[in-house]
């Protein structure tokens, strides 16, 4: 049952990711990307990570993509058609084949099935995924977390200064 669902969502995710790049109108590309995000959220749920799934939909599908579509609407690209670019096709193709080999090698070298370490499915179900993430973030990984928040603060200040009118 779970593997059927996995193949269903994975197929839709790959298919829509392909159409993000293939689709001619920017709005359609954006919508295909939303489909990909929703499929990824479903895959997160299957990996016992419901918090990640909710955040994925909330932040990526609910906020970032809406902003992108908003910009597309404002720039009136809805009717414009993307030009066909071919110069990057060869190197892009070579790069993706290379990536495929590297991923394949990494998967075959290690043990990709089963969860290793302290956090097992039982821990997640008894303790709660959100609690586990919160605990890890505020104890073990406090410094990276703070650095990330300062980075975001700098970005916010930068955005305010760039868009600010003269007072």
């Amino acid at each position, binding site marked *: 049952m779970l593997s059927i669902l996995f193949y269903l969502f994975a197929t839709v995710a790959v298919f829509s990711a392909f159409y993000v790049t293939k689709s001619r109108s920017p*709005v359609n590309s954006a*919508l295909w990307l*939303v489909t990909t995000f929703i499929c990824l959220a479903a895959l997160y749920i299957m990996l016992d990570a*419901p*918090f990640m*799934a*909710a*955040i994925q*939909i*909330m932040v990526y*599908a*609910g*906020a970032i993509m*809406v*902003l992108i*579509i*908003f910009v597309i*609407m*404002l720039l009136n690209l*809805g009717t414009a058609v993307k030009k066909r670019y071919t110069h990057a096709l060869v190197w892009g193709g070579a790069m993706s084949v290379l990536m495929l080999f590297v991923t394949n090698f990494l998967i075959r070298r290690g043990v990709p099935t089963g969860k290793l370490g302290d956090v097992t499915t039982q821990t997640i179900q008894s303790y*709660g*995924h*959100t609690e586990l993430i919160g605990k890890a973030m505020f104890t073990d990984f406090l410094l990276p977390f703070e650095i990330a928040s300062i980075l975001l603060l700098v970005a916010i200040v930068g955005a305010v200064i760039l868009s600010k009118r003269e007072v």
Partner: protein
Amino acid sequence: MTPEVLSLSNAPALWAAAMLAKILVAFSVLMGIVAYATWVERKVIGRMQTRLGPTMTGPKGLLQPIADGIKLFFKEDIIPNEASKFAFVLAPMMILAPALISMAVIPFGNAYEFTFQGVTYLVPLQITDLNIGVLFIMAMAGLGVYGIVLAGLASNSKYSLLGGIRASAQMISYELAAGLSIIAIFMLSETLSLSGIVAAQQQPLWGITAFPSWMHNWYIFSQPLAFGLFVVGSMAEINRTPFDLPEAETELVSGFCTEYSSMKYALFFMAEYANMVTISAISATLFLGGWDGPFPGVINFLIKVFGFMFFFIWIRATFPRLRYDQLMQMGWKVMLPLAIGNIVLTAVAVLLWQ
């Protein structure tokens, strides 16, 4: 014998039957409320403006929603030539679906107890108890904007496009304030599950046991600011009247649904009212103790939901529409700082007193 919670593992067939029954009942009650909310809205606004509202169809105009439904059903369904067909058909569905899905995680009553073949089972009156319930609702609210944006883009008309742009800007801004105001709630309840939040609200008020036992710790008493922010923010998010700029009929004909007709137009209407019911149910669950109260569970819950719906209709009858710059100013310069300040205050209070 202690009753056991009905689940997939201890009685699969019974669990599936209970699940189906819950979904069917919740869906049909929601649809009934949606249909009659239109009647109540016209009646109440009529009375508030010293008119009578619908009176002709049936006693007191009670058959009006059915007549409206039949009329819309038999209207010609027009898809503009220049419209992008697929997105045009998809948009009304995408706006209705998130509103309906959100109802899945809302607890609408105390657990129901019944005996089957000698075993007593407990059935929680909630379609599913996700342990990320609040986040799920926020995620679905975030998806709601796509329906409007798609409708605006696909119609290929300037009024629709303007409506769509206004809607996406407004929904992003107010979603933020509404979402941040909920954070203060789960700082107090220490859980994201909605049934957990309802259970946390049945403790004595402010943790003081000296109060009489019927005074429960509803979060409206400890988080009045968050309550106000959430109600105003969600009202803006579902485009109810003081914030209905996306469909401001005096400027934009009908905004994003200008080009729609027949059942597709009806779907937009249903989505508006379904969103209203969902927002009422969420506010009741988060701030007014859910199904907690003097009557049997479901009745308390319905009273609270209807109270909120009446409040929304009342607001529509009394307030003029905001100007667009005022709307943005209020969202970003008033509500967002207030919500963040509320989070900081709550964090300090939790540190000091818990």
